[in-house]
């Protein structure tokens, strides 16, 4: 069986122009056509070769700027390689940018038609599949509203739904499964599984090595536009994760004395604190909505994590992350400013950032809130506090599992109350 994707010695070179390269003809003529030529070239991808067999699911890992998205674009035929070649014989379904191809002033319905046709369906085919597309995206009530009224999650749902309804032989997905709620993510993954069973080849880009390990057959690791490793997903993803943490350990200064945060926790380098300390987290406070410090809360309560930091030099676009984990290290929840699509400005000097979570529906037990601040491409941690800030969650009933979301039972129309009401009666 021929390969679904063949990439041979692929190279993509980007031009970097002078910062004040003229963008208008008037300026260009006034300057005598100077500064029109690029000042330098850099390879976003270089000497990359691999083959993907049909029906495989391949994850691409690497820090931001390693060329992951460029690779995916070239696979999709957007832009032309400067070296080597890409051969993708099948029909491509792609989710490269969020909501790409959607026009904000048109309704969801109009956008579905245009996008279906662009993706290669005939009008008749779109008409036939329309209900199924809208149904999958769960947007029946909004489909005749203009696109600009949609949240990013809704746009992503519609984009994914259109892409999976175009019978792709190859599906290219860039990071965007991170958007949208958990239930929909789950649905997407199920659909992807189904595609894979039907022989569809899938290429998924992520900088989250654990997701790649979980989902993919093979992984492809890029660093500075070059292929570092291509092999079984668990092996490559583990190597990649190890390199990232090794980078953090290497940069952690060894002779830092034991310090205490302003809230009194002891921070010991390489035990519960890691990072280069170019930027430091100096205090972390767990607060209830009234702004009072808490160490214990009820399952389903809101929580604020206030992070005070200081940067002695200016740090461009740092990433803050918050993880809630159990004592044995099992991660219950993990997010970051990058994952949520926020690009922070350059920071210098002291500052504060607060993370709000509306409901913490965890089962009762002992947890830790781990916080970190990372280099803008996730290359290493500036400062990461691990199992420093304890949090006790109280809940009634339920000993197994992780989650304790609001719920109820129904039997013959009669309703018995779940934990929310239960707690109310307990108070």
């Amino acid at each position, binding site marked *: 069986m021929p390969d679904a994707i063949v990439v041979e010695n692929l190279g993509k070179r980007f031009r970097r122009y002078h910062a004040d390269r003229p963008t208008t*003809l008037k300026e260009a003529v006034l300057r005598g056509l100077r500064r029109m030529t690029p000042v330098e070239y850099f390879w976003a991808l270089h000497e990359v070769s691999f083959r993907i067999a049909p029906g495989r699911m391949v994850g691409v890992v690497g820090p931001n700027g390693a060329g992951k998205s460029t690779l995916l674009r070239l696979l999709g035929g*957007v832009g*032309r390689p400067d070296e080597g070649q890409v051969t993708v014989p099948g029909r*491509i379904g792609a989710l*490269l940018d969020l909501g790409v191809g959607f026009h904000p*002033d048109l309704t969801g319905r109009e956008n579905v038609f*245009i996008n279906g*046709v662009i993706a*290669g369906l*005939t009008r008749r085919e779109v008409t036939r599949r329309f209900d199924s597309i809208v149904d999958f995206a769960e947007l029946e009530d909004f489909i005749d509203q203009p696109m600009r009224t949609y949240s990013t999650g809704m746009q992503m749902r519609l984009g994914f739904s259109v892409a999976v309804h175009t019978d792709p032989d190859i599906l290219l997905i860039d990071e965007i499964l991170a958007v949208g709620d958990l239930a929909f993510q789950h649905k997407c993954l199920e659909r992807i599984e189904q595609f894979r069973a039907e022989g569809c080849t899938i290429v998924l880009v992520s900088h989250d090595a654990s997701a790649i390990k979980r989902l993919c057959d093979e992984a492809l690791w890029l660093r500075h536009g070059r292929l570092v490793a291509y092999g079984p997903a668990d092996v490559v993803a583990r190597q990649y994760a190890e390199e990232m943490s090794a980078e953090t350990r290497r940069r952690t200064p060894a002779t830092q004395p034991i310090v205490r945060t302003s809230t009194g926790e002891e921070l010991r380098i390489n035990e519960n604190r890691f990072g280069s300390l170019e930027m430091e987290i100096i205090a972390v406070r767990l607060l209830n909505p009234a702004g009072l410090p808490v160490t214990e809360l009820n399952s389903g309560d809101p929580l604020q994590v206030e992070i005070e930091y200081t940067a002695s030099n200016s740090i461009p676009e740092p990433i803050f992350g918050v993880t809630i984990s159990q004592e044995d290290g099992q991660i219950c929840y993990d997010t970051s400013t990058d994952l949520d699509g926020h690009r922070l400005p350059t920071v210098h000097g002291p500052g504060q950032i607060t993370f709000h979570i509306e409901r913490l529906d965890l089962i009762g037990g002992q947890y830790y809130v781990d916080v970190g601040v990372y280099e803008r491409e996730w290359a290493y941690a500036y400062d990461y506090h691990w199992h420093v800030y304890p949090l006790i969650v109280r809940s009634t009933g339920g000993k197994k599992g992780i989650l304790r979301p609001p719920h109820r039972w129904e039997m013959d129309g009669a309703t018995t109350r779940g934990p929310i009401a239960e707690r109310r009666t307990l108070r």
Partner: protein
Amino acid sequence: MTSPTALLQRKQLTYLRDLLRELVVREMKLRYKRSVLGIVWSLLNPLFQMLVFIFLSRRVLSLDIPNYPSFVFTGVLAWNWFQSTVVATTSAITANRELVRRPGFPMAILPVVTVTTNLIHFLLALPIPLVFLLAGSGRLTSAILVLPLVIALQFALILGLGYLVTTVNVTFRDTQHILAVCFMLLFYMTPVFYDASLVPSRFQIVYHLNPMFHLITAYRAILIRGDLPDFCPLLPLAVLIGVLLWAGYAVFQRASYRFVEEL
């Protein structure tokens, strides 16, 4: 029996046809989404221009041209299609970033979409000179059958120019403003509201180099006098327009790989 390649080509044609239709409808919808008068706007504009020129010709310039209303309306209509479309095509690529970045999207269709959308406006206004014609002394002859050919010529002329200007505009975003100045000059040098016979003979050569002069003359022959247009200038013009369209398309295709990076 159809060969596999023929089948593939037919599929590709169906795809392009569907795509063109969807994108033209999209552009029409976007243009009239928030305007109450909608499509009427595209009729009002040339009508008002016509009224101004009628006033000028009667009260200021005293031009003596028979059937002046339909004379000037035909000119204004053809000219507006030309000018507004070439100007609109400049942003065909830069304004459709989200489409250009779609995998496998045939970018060359975008200028065609703009020209087709404006062709529809042109066709919608076309009955008006016909009404003038029938209400006046004119007569409708079989010469009208040549009209689609003249329209096709103008379509190809606009598209050829469109490919060039939209390519330039990706690098130089002020192309539109520069074009506006050029078009203003060109407008007065094209006999839209006056007759070319008034032009001194030593300047006639300049007029004959202007493709819009020949096209407008052909429209007037068909729509006002009911005559066949003079094919003598139209045939070489058709060849030139063919070359322009081919060259414009070639330049566009060569540059199109760069578009994704520069947007």
